[in-house]
């Protein structure tokens, strides 16, 4: 950190937290490739946006990489068969979500042959038009692999339309425990750089900044070496600090640009993609391979052999854990099951949940690793204010939410909260601040929907009143007209009878 940064930190600019990262020894273990399990569960919604629509029938034989469900709508992503086999069912499976609710999935029984279908690769991606690359990335079902699972082609196309100048590649991996991006950068730096160059070509960006936290020296060295020959790609060391990998924080750290609150990064000429996404884009373009597998971290105090495992999408977390060596004491000391990292990941009710495109990790935390304990009253220590990377006042917002003054909380900037969890992580009173904020956001959204509905109903009612009034007045006018006509006819007839000259 430079002198200026240190000076700023003194005056309260030291956002974020420095959790114990617990990435090693999992990060140092060699990647293991998990064999294809007998049965795979592929949810139709593994991405942000509209769910995919199935295009296969139950009983149909599919090849590896064959389209199972197509994207529908502008923001969506298709789903492909991770291996060859038979479509056994289209059924419900527990969603990778804390609710434990189910969602529809295509069930594929593997035939063991793992036989590829037709693949259309491309030897020289830079000869392809940018929108053709976007089209192929979309067809391959590539989504952001950092966790948000936003369809990558939408971002690339938007970037090309907006004319972005900078492509930022996120290799910060700031969540504790997770090391799959680290591992990818160490093992496949050259391929990632190739993928970055393809994405740069597709987005039209002039320069590329790769941000990697300084707790990953091996990845930094590997990426710097791989990118040495590309003048337009700069590999940057960023301080290890959670949530450095958050989009707006990383953009500011690398480019100095502060994205306005109501804007998207593309509006200021920046897009951000994850390193894993770069690799998936490369596979989609060069080899014509859709996204059917991913690297994920299996970690936590209960895991016997933590490490990074390459897994086919649709594999159950239970099978992944069994492959990783299972849990200590058959899961006796298990305190929490998580998908993703401990800061923003979600708790799942059991392990029979499929790995989806956005699953960056499977964590089995022991009791001494998991946050627990009853909340004490807030002592206004303002640790949360110091930690908040957005500059909010979590203690004030939570106090208002407790009193159900949601509008007051919104006035304090609730909508700007990114739910990173820094505030709750440092809170000495262990107040579940993120839970408060998520509750308030959900409640405010529900109220907004109700308000819109009421407004729409009121508008319809007003229109009906207006229509009725208009019809009544039209009727009255017509009646008056008829009456006048009748009167005129009558008087004309009378005149005729009286024999007056017309």
């Amino acid at each position, binding site marked *: 950190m430079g002198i200026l940064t240190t000076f700023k930190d003194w*005056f*309260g600019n030291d956002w974020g*937290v420095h959790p114990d990262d617990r990435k090693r020894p999992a990060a140092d273990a060699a990647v293991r490739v998990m064999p294809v399990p007998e049965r795979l569960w592929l949810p139709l919604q593994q991405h942000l946006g509209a769910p995919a629509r199935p295009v296969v029938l139950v009983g149909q034989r599919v090849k590896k990489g064959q389209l199972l469900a197509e994207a529908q709508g502008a923001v969506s992503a298709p789903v492909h068969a991770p291996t060859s086999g038979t479509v056994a069912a289209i059924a419900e499976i527990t969603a990778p979500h*804390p*609710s*434990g609710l189910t969602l529809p999935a295509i069930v594929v029984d593997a035939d063991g042959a793992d036989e590829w279908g037709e693949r259309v690769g491309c030897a020289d991606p830079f000869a392809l038009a940018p929108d053709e690359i976007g089209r192929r990335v979309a067809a391959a079902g590539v989504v952001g692999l950092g966790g948000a699972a936003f369809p990558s082609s939408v971002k690339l196309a938007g970037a090309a339309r907006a004319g*972005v100048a900078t492509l930022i590649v996120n290799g910060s991996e700031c969540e*504790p425990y997770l090391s799959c991006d680290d591992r990818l950068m160490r093992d496949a730096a050259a391929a990632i750089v190739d993928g970055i160059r393809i994405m740069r070509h597709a987005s039209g960006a002039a320069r590329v900044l790769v941000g990697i936290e300084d707790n990953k020296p091996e990845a930094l060295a590997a990426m710097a070496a791989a990118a040495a020959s590309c003048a337009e790609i700069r590999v940057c060391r960023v301080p290890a600090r959670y949530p450095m990998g958050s989009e707006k924080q990383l953009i*500011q750290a690398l480019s100095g*640009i*502060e*994205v*306005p*609150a*109501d*804007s998207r990064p*593309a509006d*200021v*000429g920046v897009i951000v993609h994850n390193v894993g996404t770069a690799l998936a884009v490369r596979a989609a373009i060069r080899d014509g391979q859709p996204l059917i597998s991913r690297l994920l971290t299996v970690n936590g105090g209960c895991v016997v052999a933590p490490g990074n495992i390459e897994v086919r999408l649709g594999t159950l977390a*239970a099978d992944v854990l*069994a492959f990783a060596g*299972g849990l200590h004491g058959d*899961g006796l000391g*298990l305190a*929490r099951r998580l998908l993703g990292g*401990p*800061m*923003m*990941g979600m708790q799942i*009710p*059991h*392990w029979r949940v499929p790995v989806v495109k956005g699953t960056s990790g499977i964590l089995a935390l022991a009791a001494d690793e*998991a*946050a627990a304990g009853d909340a*004490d*009253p*807030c*002592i*206004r*220590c*303002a640790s949360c204010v*110091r930690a908040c*990377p*957005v500059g909010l*006042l979590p203690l*004030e917002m939570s106090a208002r939410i407790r009193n159900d003054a949601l509008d007051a909380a919104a006035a304090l*900037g609730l909508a*700007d909260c990114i*739910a990173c*969890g820094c505030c*709750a*992580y*440092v*809170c*000495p*009173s*262990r107040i*579940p601040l*993120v839970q408060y904020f*998520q509750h308030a956001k959900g409640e405010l959204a529900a109220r907004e929907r109700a308000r819109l509905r009421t407004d729409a109903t009121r508008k319809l009612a007003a229109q009906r009143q207006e229509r009725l009034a208009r019809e009544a007045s039209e009727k009255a006018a017509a009646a008056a007209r008829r009456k006048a006509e009748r009167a005129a006819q009558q008087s004309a007839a009378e005149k005729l009878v009286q024999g007056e000259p017309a």
Partner: protein
Amino acid sequence: MNPNAFAAAPVASPHAHGGGSVARTMRHVQLALLPATLHGFWLYGWPSFLLWLLTILACVGWEALALRLAGGRRVGAVLHDGSALLTGWLLAMTLPPWAPWWVAVVGGFIAIVVGKQVFGGLGQNVFNPAMVARVALLVSFPLPLTQWVAPLAQPAPGFVDALQRFLGGAPVPDAMTSATLLGHARTELSRGVDLMQVLAGAPPSSLSWLGERAGSFGEAGALLLLAGGGYLLAVGVIRWHAPFAVLAGLAVPAAIAHAVDPARYLDAGSHLLSGAAMLGAFFIATDYVTSPSTVPGRLLFGAGVGLLTWIIRSWGGYPEGMAFAVLLMNALTPTIDRCVRPRILGRDRRGRPLDLPPGSPRQ
């Protein structure tokens, strides 16, 4: 492995915690107070120990009683957080070391019941409980609250003697009393003696850095309190903004006034080492509950405490003004917190989204 075992109600993220707790914070503060406290025992003997002990016991006892009356079921758990103990400890630091037993008990009542529990308990009070008690005692019982025993007074009372004195409430024998530096300066000034003469006649120990001088229980150990404050800064329990602002707010006007008129105004060093300056700066102005939550707010708050202290010391009716200054600034804290807010990322100070930087695609 049974995959459905331990299906518990889902918990919101984050699933990791930094490990801090209220009790841990309070323990750090108590540890930081320990050197100055032991130094006080050494200077003032058994009576000061009894006062310290009873003040703490009174605070914890009143807290337990208040919690029970309020119908709380977690009385034990709340007491465990150590905040009542700390309030009692801080109050004891500000009392005359040989004050009688009822000062401790009444002080504990005012601090805990009036100063804290009627507002709703921990985290809800507007004013610093120890300072509320200190000011209420001083205003209500000026005599026992201004009897300062000389440091290392001879003959030092034994334990039994001290206990009798403590419970009997006998005044400090004249031969053993002494004036504080601030009190002495004020008295002499009001008699028309200028400070040059006053300080020339004072014993050199009155400004000794070792602190062998009369004053509140925690007054003499100013440098040990400074060290305690350094410890709190080092472990991250407090941040430097409020203490720095208090000391600067006190020292800067003191230095200017002293330079202009040394016969009328004490120098900055005396101000910093006297009274409750160090205790106030590092242990009172940093009270989480009653001070602002932002960095600029804390700088403003601290500067206000320091400046008001100097004003009260120099022109007010009491020789020492730290407690009054803290209470006044406590009253301003909600306003400061309302007016001084951090800028939200991507927004300007008024909360409107920033303009797109020049050269952005979407302009």
